[in-house]
C-alpha cells in the first residue's frame, strides 16, 4: 500500500498535498492555508490523518497556554505544524535534523501515550472514544501535550486513533518507514556507490572477508576468518563473516549451527585475545565446551579465562526495568512535578539502580582488560544469546585498550563489528514493531553501552575524538526508523529482508542508508559538533626532537607485575590443561576457577588494585584508559536526559561555554598559522602532534556568543525564553528543610541565650 502511494514522491519534487490524502479527509471547509501546514514530507512519506486546531501546550508551565496548529500522523512521524508563522530564528537553527523537526516525533520514537488523568493508553481501544488531552512521551525523552478538545470531534477521534494505531499497535517490519523511504530515495547513486562512499569515509562495515582480515591484521591477531557463512548456510543467526580461533575444526563449525563457537573480538598486542560466545546448551557441554576452550587457549600460551556474564551482570529484563524507572525522572510534564522530584533526586537515583548497572558493566570490562593487559590471558566472555552484554563488555574493553576505537570512525567501526555484524538483536530489543510476544525481549542494551561510553568520555575527555553531542545524537538515531543499522536482528535477517524488499528482484538488495551517513540527518556544519575540539591526534613517531616524549604505544603499556601483591590467578599452562579438562567435565564451565560466591569481593578488590596501579602512572590518552568506578565518578548524562526540561537549562552556562572559548583560541591559532604561512614559514615539527583538529572551530564560533547559549546546547536554543531564573516555590522549600534538623533548628545561632542583647 505504501509503496504504491509513495512512488509518486520522487526525491526531487516536493510531493503535492492532494495525492496523499484520502478523499474523505478532504473537508470542504478546509481553508486553503492548510496546504502550507504540512511539514516538508520526506520521499515516500504519506499522511494518514490530520486534525486542525489542536492545542500544543508549552511544556514549561501549568497554565493552559499553548500554540494552535495541525496535528498529523504520517507513516514516518507524528507531526505538529503550528498555525503561527515560523520565526526567522526558527529557520536558522544551527542543529537541525533534516529528517524531523522539533515538533515531529518519528513513530518508533513514541514511548508511551497517556490520555486524560494520565491514563496509559494501550493499543486496541474502544472505538469512538478519545481523550481531550493526549500526552506523548518520546524515547528521546521529549514530552508533548496536546489538547484535542478544540478540534472537530470527527478529526480528533481520527487523529487519536490514528496515532495510537500507528505508534502502539503491532505492525509488520515492512511497514517501517525505512522501506518506503528507501524505495523513493535516489539515495546517492547505487548500492555500490554507497559502499564506495562509506569506504572513503572509512567506517568499516565488517560485511566482507577483507574487513575482518584487515581488523585482525591491525591488531596482529592470529585466527581464522570464516567465510563459509557468506550465504548463511551454517546458520542465519551467525554473522555473515566472523573469526574463530585457528584450532576450530570445520566439523565444529557446522555442528549445532555454530552455537558455542568462540568468536574473535580483538587481539591484545601480547598475543592473547578476547572472544565471545553464546552459552551452549547443557547437553553438549562436556564435549564441545572443552574443545572450544582448548581452541581459545591455544591462541596464546594455553591460557584462558571465562566470564559468564549471565551470572554476574544484570539480565536484559533488569536493565529494562531499571531504565524505565530512571527515565521517569526526566519525563516531566510540569514545573511543580519537576521541583517535587528534585527533592528526592539523589535517593531516587540510587533506588532505580541505573547508574549501578552502568558501573557493573564498566567494572566487568575492567576485569577483562586486567586479564588481557596484566595477565596476558585469553578471555572468553559468554552469555545466553551472546549478543547483548557480550557486546557491551567486548566493545568497552576495546575502547579502553585500543585508541583507534576512540576516534569517530573507529568507534563507528566498533559498533559495526560488535553490534551490527555481531548480531545484536536491535529489532527485538527496541521492539519497533510492538509485537506482543516481543515485549519481553525489549531492552535498552545499546543505550546502556552508550551510557558507559559517555562515562569513559566524561572522565577522559581529550582521549575521544567524538563529542558528547555525537553520543546523544546516536542514541536518538536508534529510534529513527530510516537506518538499516538499527532495524534488524542480525546479518541474516537484514540480508533476507533487504533482498525481499528490493524493487529490482534478482538484483542488488534494497539500498538503505546506515546511520553513519550523518549527512542524511545533519548538514556539515552541524556535524562539526560531533567532534571534540580538545582531541589531539596521536603524535607521529618522528619525534626525534623529543624522543622521550610519550612514544609509548600499546606495546609498552604492560604494567609491571611487581605492582601487584596477588599473583596472576586465572591463567593456566599446559601442564594444567588436563586438570582443567577434569574440572570441565564435572562442572558447568562458567565458574570453573572460583566459586561464584567467593569471587565477587575478590574481583572488585583486584580491579581496584589494577586501577590504582594504572592511576599512578602518567596518563596517555593514546594508551590504556580505565574508568574510575567510585560513587562520585559515575554520573548522569546531563545532556541527554536534561536537554528538554526547560527548568534545568543553565542559560549562558554549561559545557558549551568552554567549548566556545576553545574554538576561539583555535581560531586564533589558525589565523596565526595563516599569517606564518604568508611569511613562508612553517611551524617546528614537534608541535604538529599536539595540533588539534582545526576543523571544528568554524561551527562553534558561529555560535560563539555563549551568553545566548544554554546548557542544553545544541539541542534547544534559548530563543523563546525569558531570561528569568527558575525559582522553586517557597512551599517546596519549607517541605525540604523538615526531615533532619529537629531541635538543632530551634537552637539559637550563637549557642546560648546570652547571645541576644
Amino acid at each position: 500500500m505504501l509503496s504504491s502511494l509513495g512512488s509518486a514522491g520522487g526525491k526531487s519534487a516536493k510531493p503535492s498535498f492532494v495525492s496523499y490524502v484520502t478523499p474523505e479527509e478532504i473537508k470542504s471547509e478546509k481553508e486553503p492555508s492548510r496546504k502550507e501546514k504540512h511539514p516538508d514530507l520526506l520521499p515516500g512519506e504519506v499522511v494518514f490523518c490530520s486534525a486542525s486546531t489542536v492545542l500544543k501546550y508549552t511544556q514549561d508551565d501549568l497554565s493552559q497556554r499553548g500554540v494552535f496548529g495541525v496535528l498529523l500522523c504520517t507513516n514516518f512521524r507524528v507531526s505538529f505544524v503550528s498555525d503561527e508563522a515560523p520565526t526567522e530564528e526558527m529557520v536558522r537553527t544551527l542543529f537541525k535534523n533534516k529528517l524531523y523537526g522539533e515538533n515531529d516525533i518519528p513513530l518508533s520514537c513514541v514511548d508511551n501515550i497517556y490520555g486524560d488523568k494520565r491514563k496509559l493508553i494501550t493499543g486496541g481501544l474502544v472505538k469512538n472514544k478519545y481523550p481531550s488531552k493526549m500526552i506523548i512521551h518520546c524515547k528521546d525523552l521529549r514530552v508533548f501535550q496536546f489538547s484535542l478538545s478544540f478540534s472537530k470531534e470527527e478529526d480528533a477521534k481520527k487523529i487519536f486513533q490514528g496515532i495510537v494505531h500507528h505508534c502502539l499497535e503491532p505492525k509488520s517490519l515492512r511497514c517501517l518507514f525505512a522501506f518506503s523511504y528507501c524505495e523513493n530515495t535516489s539515495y546517492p547513486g547505487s548500492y555500490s556507490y554507497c559502499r564506495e562512499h562509506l569506504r572513503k569515509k572509512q567506517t568499516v562495515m565488517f560485511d566482507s572477508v577483507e574487513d575482518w582480515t584487515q581488523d585482525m591484521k591491525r591488531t596482529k591477531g592470529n585466527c581464522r576468518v570464516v567465510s563459509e557463512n557468506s550465504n548463511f548456510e551454517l546458520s542465519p543467526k551467525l554473522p555473515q563473516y566472523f573469526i574463530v580461533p585457528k584450532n576450530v575444526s570445520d566439523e565444529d563449525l557446522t555442528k549445532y549451527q555454530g552455537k558455542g563457537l568462540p568468536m574473535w573480538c580483538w587481539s591484545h598486542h601480547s598475543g592473547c585475545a578476547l572472544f565471545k560466545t553464546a552459552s551452549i546448551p547443557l547437553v553438549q557441554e562436556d564435549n564441545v565446551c572443552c574443545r572450544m576452550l582448548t581452541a581459545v587457549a591455544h591462541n596464546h600460551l594455553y591460557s584462558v579465562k571465562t566470564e559468564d556474564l549471565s551470572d554476574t551482570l544484570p539480565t536484559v529484563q533488569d536493565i529494562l526495568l531499571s531504565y524505565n524507572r530512571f527515565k521517569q525522572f526526566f519525563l516531566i510534564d510540569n514545573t511543580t512535578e519537576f521541583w517535587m522530584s528534585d527533592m528526592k533526586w539523589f535517593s531516587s537515583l540510587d533506588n532505580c539502580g541505573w547508574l549501578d548497572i552502568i558501573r557493573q558493566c564498566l567494572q566487568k570490562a575492567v576485569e577483562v582488560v586486567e586479564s588481557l593487559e596484566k595477565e596476558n590471558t585469553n578471555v572468553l566472555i559468554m552469555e545466553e544469546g551472546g549478543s547483548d552484554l557480550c557486546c557491551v563488555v567486548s566493545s568497552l574493553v576495546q575502547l579502553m585498550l585500543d585508541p583507534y576505537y576512540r576516534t569517530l570512525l573507529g568507534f563507528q567501526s566498533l559498533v559495526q563489528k560488535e553490534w551490527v555484524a555481531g548480531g545484536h538483536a536491535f529489532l527485538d530489543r527496541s521492539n519497533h514493531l510492538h509485537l506482543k510476544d516481543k515485549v519481553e525481549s525489549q531492552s535498552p542494551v545499546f543505550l546502556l553501552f552508550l551510557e558507559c561510553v559517555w562515562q569513559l568520555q566524561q572522565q577522559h575527555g581529550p582521549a575521544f575524538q567524538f563529542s558528547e553531542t555525537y553520543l546523544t545524537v546516536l542514541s536518538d538515531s536508534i529510534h529513527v526508523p530510516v537506518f538499516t543499522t538499527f532495524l534488524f536482528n542480525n546479518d541474516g535477517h537484514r540480508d533476507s529482508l533487504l533482498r525481499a524488499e528490493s524493487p529490482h528482484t534478482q538484483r542488488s538488495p534494497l539500498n538503505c542508508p546506515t546511520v553513519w551517513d550523518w549527512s542524511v540527518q545533519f548538514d556539515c556544519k552541524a556535524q562539526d559538533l560531533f567532534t571534540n575540539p580538545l582531541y589531539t591526534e596521536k603524535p607521529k613517531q618522528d619525534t626525534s626532537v623529543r624522543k622521550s616524549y610519550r612514544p609509548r604505544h600499546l606495546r609498552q603499556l604492560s604494567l609491571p607485575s611487581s605492582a601487584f601483591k596477588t599473583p596472576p590467578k586465572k591463567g593456566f599452562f599446559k601442564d594444567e590443561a588436563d586438570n582443567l579438562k577434569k574440572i570441565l567435565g564435572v562442572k558447568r564451565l562458567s565458574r570453573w576457577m572460583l566459586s561464584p560466591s567467593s569471587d565477587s569481593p575478590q574481583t572488585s578488590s583486584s580491579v581496584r588494585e589494577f586501577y590504582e596501579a594504572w592511576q599512578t602512572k602518567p596518563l596517555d590518552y593514546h594508551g590504556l584508559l580505565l574508568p574510575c568506578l567510585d560513587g562520585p565518578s559515575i554520573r548522569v548524562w546531563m545532556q541527554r536526559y536534561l536537554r528538554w526540561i526547560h527548568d534545568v537549562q543553565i542559560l549562558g552556562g554549561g559545557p558549551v561555554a568552554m567549548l566556545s572559548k576553545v574554538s576561539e583560541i583555535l581560531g586564533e591559532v589558525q589565523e596565526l598559522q595563516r599569517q606564518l604561512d604568508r611569511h613562508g614559514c612553517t611551524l617546528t615539527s614537534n608541535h604538529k602532534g599536539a595540533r588539534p583538529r582545526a576543523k571544528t572551530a568554524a561551527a562553534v564560533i558561529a555560535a560563539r556568543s555563549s551568553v545566548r547559549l544554554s546548557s542544553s546546547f545544541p539541542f534547544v536554543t534559548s530563543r523563546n525564553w525569558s531570561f528569568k531564573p527558575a525559582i522553586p516555590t517557597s512551599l517546596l522549600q519549607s517541605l525540604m528543610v523538615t526531615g533532619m534538623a529537629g531541635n538543632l533548628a530551634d537552637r539559637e545561632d550563637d549557642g546560648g541565650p546570652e547571645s541576644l542583647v
Partner: protein
Amino acid sequence: MEKQLFGGVAGGDSTAQPVVPNRNKPRTLATSGSKQDSVETLDSPTGSHVEWCKQLIAATISCQISSVPADTASGDCKPPRDGTKQVQTDEVPLVPGETIKAVAKDVMYICPFTGLVTGTLTSTNYKLYFISLERDTPFILDVNLGAISRLETISVQSHGENTRGMEIVCKDMRSPRFAYKEDASQPEIVEVLAKHAFPLSNDLPLFAFLYKEEFPVDGWKVYDPMAEYKRQGLPNESWTISKMNSSYEVCDTYPALVVIPTSIKDDHLKGVVAFRARHRIPVLSWIHPESQATIVRSSQPLVGPSDRRCKEDERYLQTIMDANAQSHKLTIFDARQSSVADNNKAKDGGYESESFYPNVELNFLEIPNIHVMRESLRKLKEVVYPSIDEAHWHSAVDQTHWLEYIRLLLAGAVRIADKLESGKTSVMVHCSDGWDRTAQLTSLAMLMLDSHYRTLRGFQVLLEKEWISFGHKFAARVGHGDENHANSERSPLFIQFIDCVWQMNRQFPAAFEFNELFLITILDHLYSCLFGTFLYDSEQERIAKEVQTKTVSLWSYINSQPEDFTNPFYVDYEHQVLYPLASVRHLELWTGYYVRWNPRMRPQMPVHQNLKELLFLRAELQRKVDELEREASSSRGSLSSSSEHTSSPSHSGGTPLHTIV
C-alpha cells in the same frame, strides 16, 4: 568534560608540597620578581603550568601518595624534576618563621588507602610532617596544625605493647591515624602537637604572627572600601559613605565605613541603632548601576513578644525604598525559617511586620541555622572519609542534606538577584545577627549580579567586604587555635559559601576568572592560620591586634602568582547576570575538595592540559609572527615597531609542558 575542572598529576609526583609559599620553591620568588613583566607570564604558560599542577597536587593531596612501582616501561620518560633529590632525605621543609618542636621516629601512619607506612613524624609550630622513605618514592603527609580540630588517643593493641595510637581529627575532612612507641625520655609528641595546634589555649601566638615570608605584592591593599564604593558609583545623592562608626562605637562588629541614606539625621539613626540586634543597622552592600536598586543588609529588628514598633526604623526603611525611584516597594528576605523567626520574638528578636512597614514585602528563605549546617558537614565527612560506599553513594550524600542546603542558599540568592535585576526593587537581607546567612546570601547575589566580583581580584574584594569587614565571626566559626572543639559556635558557613561559588563555577565554566585551586586554597588557609586574612571576628579586633602590620595577607601570596589561580576558559561576561540553577539535578558534591584525600578520586592529568598546550601553541605562533614582522620591518629600515608583543624568553622546544605527562 567540565566536571573535573582541574586535576593533578598523580604519577611521579610524590613530593607534594603544602599549598604554602615556600622558600624551597624558588619559583614563587622568581615569578614574583618578574611579575610586572606581564609578557613573560603570558608567554610561559608551560612553566606556570608545571607549577600549577604541583600546586594542585599540593592542595589536593599533600598526603597519601602511594608509592609508584618501579616503573621500567616509562622510566625513560620520567622527567628530571628539580627537588627530587632533596626530598630523598627526611629533611622537613620549613616556611620562614617555622621551627621544629618535636620529632618522633618509627611512627606508623595507618593510611586508610595504602596500608601501614613507617617513618618520622615531625611537629613544628606550623605543621605536622610525616615522611617515610621505606617505599620506592618518599611518602609524605602533612597537616597544617590549624586544620586540626581535636587530637584523640585511639587503641592500637594490634601493633604491639607500649604502642600508642592517635587520631588527628581535622577540619578539612580527614582524620589521619598514627601509632607510635612510648618513649619516656621524650615529651610525648601528642602533647607538643596539642600545644601548637591550639596556641590560644596555651598562651601562644597564632602562627600568622610568626610567619615571616615576604611577597612582592601587598595583599592588604586589595580592599579599599572607599575605592570599592566609588566603583559602585557611591556616594550619590541618596547614599552617603558615613564615618559614624569610625571608632566602632556605634556597632562594634561593623566596619568603620558604612553606606547609609544621605537624608538620615543622627538622632534619628540612634533609634534605629537601638532597634536592631547588636546595633547592626541596615546599610548598603551593593547598588545596581542602572536601576539604583540596592542590596541592604542588617540584623533582625528587636520586635520582641509584644510586637514593639520603632518609628525611626520604619522611616529608615522608607528612606531606603525612596532612594530607588524605579520601585515603590522594598523586599525583605529573612534568611531564617519562619517558625524560628517567630520563636525569636520570645527572645526579644523577630521580624518586620508588613502591617507596620508600608510597602514592605517580607519573605522567609527557610534556611536552617548554623547548628544544622555543622551537623550536616559532620555527616558528610562520614560519607566521604575514609571510604566511599559505591552502591549507595547518592543516597548517602542525600542523607547529609548538604546539597539541599547548598540548593537552598543558591535559590535564595537567585531570588534576591532576580528581585533586583528584573523587579528593580531594593532588597534588604537579614537573619538573626546578620553575619552568617546574611553574608552568604548578599555575597552570592552580588556574585550573580556584578561581573567584577567574578574576577580574581574582585572576588577578594567581595570576601574582604561582605565577610571580613562586616564581621562574619571567623574566629568563632572556625575556632582558630582553640582546643574547644565542641564549641557550638563553630559552623562551616564559609565553606558552604565557597561550595556555592564552586557550584556556580561548574555551571558557568567560563564566567569566573579564578579556578578551583583558588577556592581550595582559600579554604585551606581558612584553617591554616598562616595568613592573617581570616583571623578574628571583626574589623575592630583586627585593628586592635594589628593584623595588617604583623601578619601576611593570603592575597599577597595569591596575587604574587595569579596565573596559578586563573581559569584558562575565562571570558568576561561583563554585565551579564548569572542565575545558577538551584536544582539538585545540577548540583554535585565537590569531590575535588571533600573527597580529595582519596587517591582514587584524583585525576591523573588536568583536564585542561590540551587547552594549555593550545595556549602555548598560540603564544609560540604569536612569537614567530612577531619575530617575522620585526624582521620585515627592520629590513625596511624602521626598527622597533611592534614592541607591544615583544617576545618572551624563548622556549627550547616547549618541552616543559610535556615533562609532566
